[in-house]
């Protein structure tokens, strides 16, 4: 009995050990290291030169950073509106009484979710080919020769389209689960009282799904602000200047990392963190339940 007690006493620490070791080595230590390096100039060899806040200053006075930041916000906010409307409508359609238990729902729900499981890298390549200037399907169908991806005005819209295409299924499943939590009695009662479908959505479904919208908004913010692959892969074929037309802030971090500007890359890392942090706090604050 005594050995058993001792075993139980030390068990939680032993259970935590592998997780914490990995956490400290690959998370805590590098985070601190990144903070220190962000105040230095370092190329990976030679000496570390302290430059104070020069790295941050460089970022904040760099026009390309503000362009990238603008696009990052664009991808996040401009995407959220159409994707929420479409996904909410889809979720609502699949939850109506006629559809709910039909075979059609068993077909449409997974089909609409498929883009979510597709690898971003591959999706970016397919979209690039889809929108290619002469040989792309979109241009051939409409008989146009627009260079969608290489153009500085349209490139970000292609990325946006890709994000919407990929995200619809995710949002739809989230919204459907939010709707499941709403009791059918409530909507049935309203229907018997003569409420129209539109009134039910506006007065019952939407207010009760507030938490769901909040969850979707925050989860999406965190991943959108860190978006990298879409812009990086979409413009690979051309390599050159087109790369800049779609990039977000993370892409700039990578540019510095690849160039060996480690101090700058770390500073970008912290800028991205502050961005995610401030925006998440803002959303939490703005959407907190007032009681």
């Amino acid at each position: 009995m005594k050995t058993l007690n001792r075993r139980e006493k030390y068990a939680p620490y032993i259970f935590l050990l592998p997780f914490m070791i990995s956490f400290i080595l690959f998370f805590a230590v590098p985070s601190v290291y990144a903070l220190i390096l962000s105040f230095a100039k370092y190329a990976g060899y030679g000496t570390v030169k302290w430059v104070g806040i020069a790295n941050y200053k460089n970022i904040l006075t760099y026009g390309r950073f503000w362009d990238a930041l603008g696009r990052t916000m664009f991808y996040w906010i401009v995407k959220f509106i159409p994707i929420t409307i479409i996904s909410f409508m889809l979720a609502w359609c699949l939850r109506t009484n006629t559809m709910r238990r039909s075979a059609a729902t068993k077909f449409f729900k997974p089909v609409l979710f498929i883009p979510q499981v597709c690898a971003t890298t591959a999706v970016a390549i397919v979209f690039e080919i889809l929108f290619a200037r002469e040989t792309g399907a979109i241009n051939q169908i409409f008989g146009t020769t627009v260079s969608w991806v290489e153009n500085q005005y349209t490139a970000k819209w292609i990325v946006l389209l890709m994000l919407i295409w990929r995200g619809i299924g995710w949002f739809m499943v989230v919204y459907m689960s939010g709707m499941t939590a709403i009791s059918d009695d409530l909507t049935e009662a309203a229907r018997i009282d003569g409420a129209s479908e539109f009134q039910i959505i506006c007065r019952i479904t939407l207010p009760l799904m507030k938490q769901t919208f909040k969850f979707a908004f925050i989860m999406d913010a965190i991943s959108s602000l860190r978006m990298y692959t879409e812009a990086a892969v979409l413009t690979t074929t051309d390599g050159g200047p087109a790369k800049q037309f779609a990039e977000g802030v993370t892409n700039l971090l990578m540019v510095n990392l690849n160039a060996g500007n480690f101090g700058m890359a770390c500073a970008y890392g912290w800028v991205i963190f502050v961005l995610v942090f401030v925006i998440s706090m803002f959303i939490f604050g703005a959407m907190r339940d007032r009681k």
Partner: protein
Amino acid sequence: MQISKTRRRVHKVFSTALIYVFLIIMAFIVLFPLYIMLAGSFKSSSDLAANSWGLPNPATLNNYYRLLSYNAGTIVRTYFNSIFITATHTALVILFGGLAAFAFSKYQFKGRNTMFIMLLATMMIPFELMATPLYIIFSKIGWLNSYQIQIIPFTANVFAMYMIKQYMDSVPNALIEAARLDGAGPFRIWWKIMMPVSKPAVSATVVLVALAKFNDYLWPKITVTKEKFMPIMTILPTLNDKNAVWNVPRELLLTGCTIVIIPLIVLFIFLQDEFMNSVTIGAVKE
């Protein structure tokens, strides 16, 4: 009365039809790029250029043969790299996360709540922040261009641990007590009771972690430059590098995408619930 009944029925048929039209349009939009990809993989280069959205004419398996022999079998090798890296990384994440989840969920120890909240707070810190320092550290210890650099970092996945812990909280303590009285040790209880009982959360986490790892592009792009160790994802966009800009082998790229995406979709069809649960399991609890 009769009229209103008919009208209601007409209304219902009409709205159902409208729902179907909407769903079919959306399904078409979702499937269209995938169709272009799949059809394109069976087209010859000139066929794809002239006939980008029709059916392949004539259909050919040539692209698949080309892909198989591309760069002395690189595709096959990197594909297996991807599977190996994904499987081992996911296993470690579940092992570490599941053990830690058990400790946080069912044991009382000093500093438990503080530690847990601190870990949750770190979820805000994006992985990109760690990329640079880890790159420097790993280059010093000679881990660049290896399997372990793709497997071992980020095995302390707080989100995965949190998802499993939330589920374990709902497992009754009586179950553990009963096993303890029967003489089962802590590890045995974890392996034989906690993990199997938490299967819904564990399997959703497996799907989430594995999918993210398989699809990851940024980390291997930073740390692996030798094709031998690359996952398929970093190879895919380079399929056109060996050609002139004028002659991008689009049909080959589409074939590469097909061999990556189609298995994922097939897997998804078999594991639909796990995939879709993985989205909402974090949403249910606030």
